[in-house]
């Protein structure tokens, strides 16, 4: 199981209602149902993934998060989870607003463009970085709006969004990210997981 999902599961309380936006094949939803008795719903664009979720008995709605979040009522979920997709939207600002409208809290994970290997690749080789977390090249990447953990901190501040907890993930190690250690964690975390709202 992905470390990221374990971290997300730990951030969520038992017996809550969670919407997983871009739920993929339902791995995270399965985990939440089995270990935390959470009532889950998924939103997923890809037909194969939708079928996989249905096969597992997980409720999933086929649709596009960019244009179809309006169907969920205000504050209808305790948490809305968005795993490594924010940077792929045309309008991440608008999507985030929708997530905060639907969920009492929102969990967002981002591949961190501030990770030292990413910085080194661009600095030393002068090429767009290709790493395990960012496996695509510049012309075929779905990531339109890459950002760093620090960027998302600044963004939340500007939009007056409350940051409740941030966890940095590097391989199997996780650590709490605070404003006091932001610079160093922004350098050594592959992934940032934000609990906001």
């Amino acid at each position, binding site marked *: 199981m992905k470390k990221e999902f374990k971290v997300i599961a730990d951030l969520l309380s038992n017996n809550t209602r969670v919407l997983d936006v871009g739920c993929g094949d339902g791995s995270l939803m399965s985990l939440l149902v089995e270990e935390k008795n959470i009532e889950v719903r998924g939103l997923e664009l890809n037909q194969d993934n939708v*079928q996989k979720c*249905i096969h597992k*008995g997980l409720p*999933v*709605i086929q*649709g596009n998060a960019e244009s179809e979040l309006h*169907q969920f009522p205000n504050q209808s979920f305790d948490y809305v989870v968005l795993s490594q997709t924010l940077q792929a939207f045309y309008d991440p600002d608008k999507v985030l607003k929708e997530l905060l409208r639907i969920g009492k809290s929102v969990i967002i994970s981002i591949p961190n463009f501030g990770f030292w290997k990413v910085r080194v690749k661009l600095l030393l080789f002068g090429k767009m970085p290709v790493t395990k977390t960012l496996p695509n090249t510049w012309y075929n990447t779905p990531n339109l709006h890459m950002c760093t953990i620090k960027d998302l901190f600044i963004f939340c501040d500007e939009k007056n969004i409350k940051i409740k907890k941030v966890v940095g993930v590097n391989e199997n190690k996780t650590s709490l990210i605070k404003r006091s250690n932001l610079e160093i964690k922004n350098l050594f975390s592959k992934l940032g997981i934000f609990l906001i709202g």
Partner: protein
Amino acid sequence: MNKKFDNIKKLYVSKPLKLDCGKTISNFPLAYETYGKLNSDKDNAILVFHALTGDQFVTGTNPITNKEGWWVTAVGPNKALDTDKYFVICANVIGGCMGSFGPRDINPVTNHPYGLDFPVITIRDMVRAQESLLDHLGIKKLLCATGGSMGGMQLLQFCTTFPNKTFSAVPIACSTSHSAQNIALNELARQAIMADPVWDNGKYFEKNIQPKNGLAVARMVGHISYLSEKGMQEKFGRKLQEKADYEFSFNADFQVESYLRHQGYAFVERFDANSILYITRAMDYFDISKQFDGGLIDAFKNQKTKFLVISFSSDWLYTTKENKDIVIALNASGADVSFSEIKTEKGHDSFLVNEPDFLKTLKSFIDSMYEKIKK
């Protein structure tokens, strides 16, 4: 009534049923068929609602028409509705012509077939009539209920009229109310029948004849609406029917004309013109939101049933948008709902033909629901 209807399963519903039009019917026949076996826990039953021209014979050979059942692609051993595992039930709707109470039955007051004296029925009347069948079969709660097109409309009505009577539900290619376009197409079908002089205000049956020409045209309208533009182009294009060049006549030069004529005239052998009038009317009157003060959200409140809504990308009769509106209403009511749009060029007909993605999704869902019950 025709003798061949004597040997099919029928329940005489004794409980009076007050119809939406105000009239009450009682002791009326409801023809049905079952497939597979009900298990000892009585928790493996699936109720199928049929579409406009369907009937209770979903799979195997229809004993009246000697043709294959209408949903043979989905119902049978190891299929989506696996009859080795599940007990599948389907009833002919009232207003129909496959043994259930319909305009062909004899009116005891006049001793003639009802014809247009048959009461105008609604989708809710159809569904209320079928509930008695579950009591009769000793089923308290269904594992699943499903249906496409008008079958899906009956299913949505069933879920709102009898909440939580089924553990899960799969409405397919349908909507919560009939659109203007769908009413218009139904009106075209009805006008075709009524324009046939043989129809004679619905009294043709007494003379033992059918308004074949009108009924065939009505069916042709339907068949056009069941296909997609692209699907039709791919299937027929401008291909000619067993000839090298145009005949310069009004015979069926094109394959698509020949197809429509064949479908139209095959249909008159198995269906009743008055039934088409009554059933299409029921579809037109269908609007769930009208039955509840708070509209659709109110209609689906407190639903424990787990829904899977399925639409087909090329269906222009019951579009993905209309199906998504069902999902939005269910979501707004907090119901457990899944949705999948199957990408296909086969149009509205997709649920009746071999569409692997659709059948796989349907099977996965029903099997996973059964696992949940058995956990």
